[in-house]
């Protein structure tokens, strides 16, 4: 059996999803979202910053919040120290006395408990947002976010998240990936297909939180669980594509794999356990019929395609070694380019893979344009296209393994 046949269904689904995103991007409701102006009304909002050992970044995070273009009397900032063991408490305490800021120290109980404690304090806010203490916001981000809540059915709004000052190759690669995420979330918001409200600068309607309850542990994916709970309750989740927030990302591959394993395992556990009823359920529209099933398929497909690639490459390497044994390397390694070889490489799989890759790159460019996110993307796109695919299978396999074996991992 030709092993490449196994790739066909995944290629089809991957292409279909990209085309769906593109078609929806060009639809009028999505265009209207892009053109939506920043809010001129200024309802009372609270921003909770849950912290655990964030002594190096919390100061920058708070400063970016204080620089937000928003009336000071309408913006409350709640810093919650979730039992940090470093100097986070000291940095936080330096803000005591600022009328906009409330500082709370509590015993360590997990991120969801820190956010809930902040919500308790910000009880009179109309909207409540979170900002991870390693993230920084653009001054106009809050007005962009608030404009999403004009429709009373909207329970939450997500920002345009990208990487804070990407310098290294790994950071640039993740930056390109995040920009793709901006485009995807922007498009999916038009069909209410968003399944996660990321920690950096997602906002929630306080009345909805009161109705459906606060944050839960949710397999270390409290932001995803909250989004799914809102979707289950019939609410909509919006996106503000120009509400720029910059976050710090893992600087080494092991840390990246650890972070993504946490995200992916959280997704798999929530979707296969508590929110199983949403998957494949027409009641939840694109989320139930497309986004969640494809998210699951992407995990399985990523692993299968990776294993397939390993098998094919290993087979080819061994075969080449077997065939070329004894022949001088100078002959074997010399380029034997021919038009015949080029012609042979133009197969159904290679052409379709190329089209899918081009569509991904197009979406990264769209994401950058829509959000006006700074920083050059060339190196990031190269990394995204050529390197990330070799790293991702490791967290996908690890997540699947954790799901099957019930393994629990620490946050950091």
């Amino acid at each position: 059996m030709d092993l490449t046949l196994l790739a066909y269904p995944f290629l089809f689904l991957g292409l279909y999803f990209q085309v769906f995103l593109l078609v929806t991007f060009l639809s009028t409701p999505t265009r209207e979202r892009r053109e939506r102006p920043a809010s001129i009304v200024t309802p009372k909002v609270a921003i909770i910053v849950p912290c655990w050992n964030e002594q190096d970044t919390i100061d920058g995070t708070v400063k970016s919040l204080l620089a937000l273009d928003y009336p000071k009397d309408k913006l409350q900032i709640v810093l919650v120290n979730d039992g940090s063991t470093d100097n986070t408490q000291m940095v936080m305490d330096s803000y005591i006395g600022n009328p906009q800021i409330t500082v709370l120290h509590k015993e360590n109980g997990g991120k969801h408990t820190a956010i809930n404690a902040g919500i308790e304090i910000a009880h009179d806010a109309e909207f409540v947002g979170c900002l991870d203490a390693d993230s920084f916001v653009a001054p106009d981000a809050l007005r962009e976010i608030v404009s999403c809540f004009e429709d009373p059915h909207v329970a939450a709004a997500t920002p345009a998240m990208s990487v804070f000052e990407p310098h290294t190759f790994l950071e640039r690669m993740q930056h390109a990936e995040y920009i793709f995420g901006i485009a995807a979330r922007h498009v999916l918001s038009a069909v209410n297909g968003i399944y996660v409200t990321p920690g950096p600068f997602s906002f929630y309607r306080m009345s909805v939180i009161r109705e459906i309850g606060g944050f839960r542990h949710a397999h270390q994916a409290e932001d995803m669980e909250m989004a799914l709970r809102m979707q289950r309750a019939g609410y909509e989740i919006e996106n503000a594509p120009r509400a720029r927030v910059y976050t710090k990302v893992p600087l080494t591959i092991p840390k990246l794999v650890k972070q993504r394993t946490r995200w992916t395992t959280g997704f798999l556990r929530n979707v296969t356990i508590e929110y199983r009823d949403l998957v494949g359920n027409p009641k939840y529209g694109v989320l139930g019929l497309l986004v969640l099933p494809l998210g699951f398929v992407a995990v399985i497909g990523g692993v299968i395609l990776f294993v397939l690639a390993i098998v094919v490459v290993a087979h080819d390497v061994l075969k080449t070694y077997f065939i070329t044994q004894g022949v001088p390397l100078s002959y074997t390694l010399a380029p034997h380019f021919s038009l015949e070889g080029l012609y042979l490489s133009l197969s159904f799989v290679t052409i379709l893979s190329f089209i899918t890759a081009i569509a991904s790159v197009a979406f990264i460019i769209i994401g950058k344009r829509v959000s006006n996110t700074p920083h050059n993307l060339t190196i990031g796109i190269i990394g995204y296209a050529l390197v990330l695919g070799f790293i991702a299978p490791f967290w996908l396999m690890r997540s699947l393994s954790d799901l099957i074996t019930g393994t629990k991992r620490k946050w950091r």
Partner: protein
Amino acid sequence: MPPSKSPVRSLAFRNSILALLITLFIIGSVIYAVNYLDQQRVAQLSALQNQLATDTLSVETQLALLESAPCDDISDTDTLSQEVSTLGGQLSTAESRLGANDAQVIQLKDQYTLLEIRDYLLVKQLETTCHTKPTVALYFYSNVPGSCTDCDRASYALSYLHQANPNLRVYSFDYNLDLGALKTLIAVEKVQPKFPAFVIDGTHTYGFTTIADFETSFPKDFFATSTATSTTATTTKK
């Protein structure tokens, strides 16, 4: 408050159907493009067929001329041999793409094999009449699954030796090809159905272990005196 999702639902439904149609269109276009390329290749095979016919006639003519013309005027077969080598590469590609059982591929392979045999006869005739001394390797392989596990290695080694020693002429034959002339050649050369099989300057060798071992099948002075004459390299082994 909820729900009020009808506009969202209708947009999602419309776009999912539209996306499905576009995806199917893209996939259909890719299939069409790949098929079109194959068709173009098949069209080129017709040209290949004509080329093979012309080359075969050319070899025949040279054989006929050899009876009356001086050796100096006839022995330049380099250009023709290079063409034969190129044709072999194209045929190999066609075989990879269209399959060894494709009717047109089999027909071309028959013609190509005939051309090879005639070129081989011409070389032998030149050797007798004009006292040229190229080293000739007849290589017989089998495409029957499991019948020749070392044929890929043998093909690769021959390609290397041909590249390293332009004095070497290699003629590759699919042993199982249903072609009278080939069967006659096999009978004349007394080649047994053990693969890979080689007839190098009249000496029979079967099997392939290492390239060093294989090199011992060649005349002792071959690797010392590899002056360029003409070559025919074919790698139609699948």
